[in-house]
């Protein structure tokens, strides 16, 4: 039987999987995940795809905000950069997704690092405002650079294809999106076992002590902006392949707030938290829609109220989580797990 925290080697301390059981259950989860298209309808596959994209974006944002402590409100703008650079490459130069997705990530990483340069001087609130400004500047550019972005009307993106096989439905696209999501989550999980990842955390906890210990703070802040924006750019690229038509309406400021909400509700500085938060925030409107649909017989006015209900419940969820569970769903999950670990002898 297991008893609490007892590790005798550094390797055990660094391990991703604490027990063989954890490894096996993750394996089973992945198998089930990839069998999902056999069971779910196209509508739910759309939801699952959006969850996977949100997971990538939320993990990316958490790397920057949760692990490095740099607040960014430019997430919607970075998503837009990823999506539009994909549409440009796919439309104009006819490049396959294997090229466009990573390059969209790299382009976004570059843009993210440009907007991350103020982080040399700015901290906390001020950085949040600089990234807020970045959002509006990118939005303005997207609306006005019509030759590339199609302006307010938007632009279409051809379906991703693997050789002659077009990934033109959500079920087909799922394998692409889910594999990339799984790979990126693993990369992030491993990132925080490396020197760079530890440097990020050191900067978050105390930037002055990090500098004293020999971490090049500015370099790592920029690197964090780069890695984070790469993730968000890949998410934006996949979003373009999924939505097929992208316009500035896909990337309002509320999307950036949604992503911040995901990592708050999921748990700052937790990969698992980003995943849980992404699932929570993406499912919230779907469940609300089901609920209002089910109750529409009894309360006919409810369907009209759906839009405001969605906004209100999202806001309420954020406020309640911040007040009552500031460490998010991930912390809750660990509490539950620890309770059962020693059950029935928890003391």
């Amino acid at each position, binding site marked *: 039987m297991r008893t609490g925290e007892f590790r005798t080697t550094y390797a055990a301390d660094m391990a991703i999987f604490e027990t063989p059981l954890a490894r096996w259950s993750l394996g089973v989860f992945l198998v089930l995940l990839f069998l999902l298209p056999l069971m779910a309808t196209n509508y739910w596959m759309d939801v699952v795809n959006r969850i996977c994209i949100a997971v990538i974006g939320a993990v990316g944002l958490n790397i920057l905000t949760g692990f490095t402590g740099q607040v960014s409100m430019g997430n919607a703008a970075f998503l837009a950069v990823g999506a539009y650079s994909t549409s440009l490459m796919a439309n104009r130069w006819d490049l396959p997704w294997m090229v466009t997705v990573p390059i969209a990530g790299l382009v976004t990483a570059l843009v993210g690092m440009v907007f991350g340069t103020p982080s040399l001087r700015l*901290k906390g609130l001020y950085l949040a405002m600089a990234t807020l400004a970045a959002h509006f500047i990118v939005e303005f550019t997207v609306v006005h650079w019509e030759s590339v972005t199609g302006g307010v009307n938007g632009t279409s993106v051809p379906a991703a294809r693997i050789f002659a096989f077009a990934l033109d439905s959500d079920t087909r696209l799922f394998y692409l999106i889910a594999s990339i999501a799984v790979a990126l989550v693993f990369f992030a999980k491993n990132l925080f076992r490396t020197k760079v990842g530890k440097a990020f955390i050191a900067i978050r906890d105390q930037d002055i002590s990090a500098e004293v210990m020999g971490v090049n703070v500015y370099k790592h802040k920029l690197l964090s902006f780069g890695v984070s924006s790469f993730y968000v750019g890949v998410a934006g690229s996949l979003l373009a392949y999924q939505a097929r038509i992208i316009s500035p309406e896909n990337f309002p400021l509320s999307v950036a707030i949604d992503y911040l909400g995901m990592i708050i509700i999921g748990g700052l500085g937790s990969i698992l938290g980003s995943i849980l938060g992404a699932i929570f925030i993406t499912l919230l409107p779907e469940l609300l829609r089901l609920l209002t649909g089910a109750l529409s017989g009894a309360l006919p006015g409810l369907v009209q109220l759906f839009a405001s209900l969605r906004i209100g419940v999202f*806001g309420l969820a954020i406020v309640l989580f911040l007040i009552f569970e500031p460490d998010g769903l991930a912390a809750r999950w660990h509490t539950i797990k620890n309770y059962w670990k020693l059950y029935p002898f928890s003391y």
Partner: protein
Amino acid sequence: MNFFLQLAINGVVIGSIYALVALGFVIIYKASGIINFAQGEFLVLGAYVCLAILSSGRVPVVPAFFLTLAFSAVLGVLLERLILRPMIGEPVISVIMVTFGLSNILRAVVQGLWGTDTRPFPALFPSTPVMFGPVPVSQGYLWSLGSVALLLILFSTFFRYSREGIAMRATAFSQQVALSMGISVKRIFALSWSIAAIVSAIGGVLLGSIRGGVDGSLAFLGLKVVPVTILGGLDSIQGAIVGGLIIGVLENLSGGYLDPLLGGGVKEVAPFIALVLILMIRPYGLFGKVHIERV
């Protein structure tokens, strides 16, 4: 030249309303170190409440206005007590997000109660324009400029001479010292939130009557005051006023002259470009407290 003057006057008027809303923003920041992204929703809510009271038909304009202010004051105190107080001392990201959450809740309430269509707002001021040399200026503009100026003077005297105002400045200077002098910091926080809600509501009513209608898009003003407060200095009341006027004039001039070249929308983005430049050159703004920290 006329075009320039017209733009500049419009800029000063809208800038004075920015100054008013920014004042609320700065008061909250000074007292509690919280950036309030729900300021725009306070403004919308104030305008709608005033409209609702007016359209009930039983209350004349002036009492309706004061009823709106009373409502805002109570709202501010309630929100501070229920939502903001647990956030004191939490990391920046949590504080930012809680005000975003709050703004979402308020927006949902406004949309649920009044819908998303633009509602006509009664003209509170006579419509015949006054001539300023060659430039006609609508009376609504003059009234709102005058009332904003009056309010700003009122608040300056309040902070300078009144007991509560001095207590607020003491709290902003150091919460510990204020506590040891027998000032109730909690009451100051509540007071600052209700002042912020009141000034935003006034801004909302003025803006509603100038534009002749209210809808949720007015809330965008809450984000526009971010550049204003940064330009003036986050913790400076005079900075909020000067910053408001500068940003108001800047966005109108840049909108007026650059929109034909760039195809619209410059007015919305110009304050944010200014914001980036200010942050690069002088992050503490024109009048803000210089806080130097090197890493």
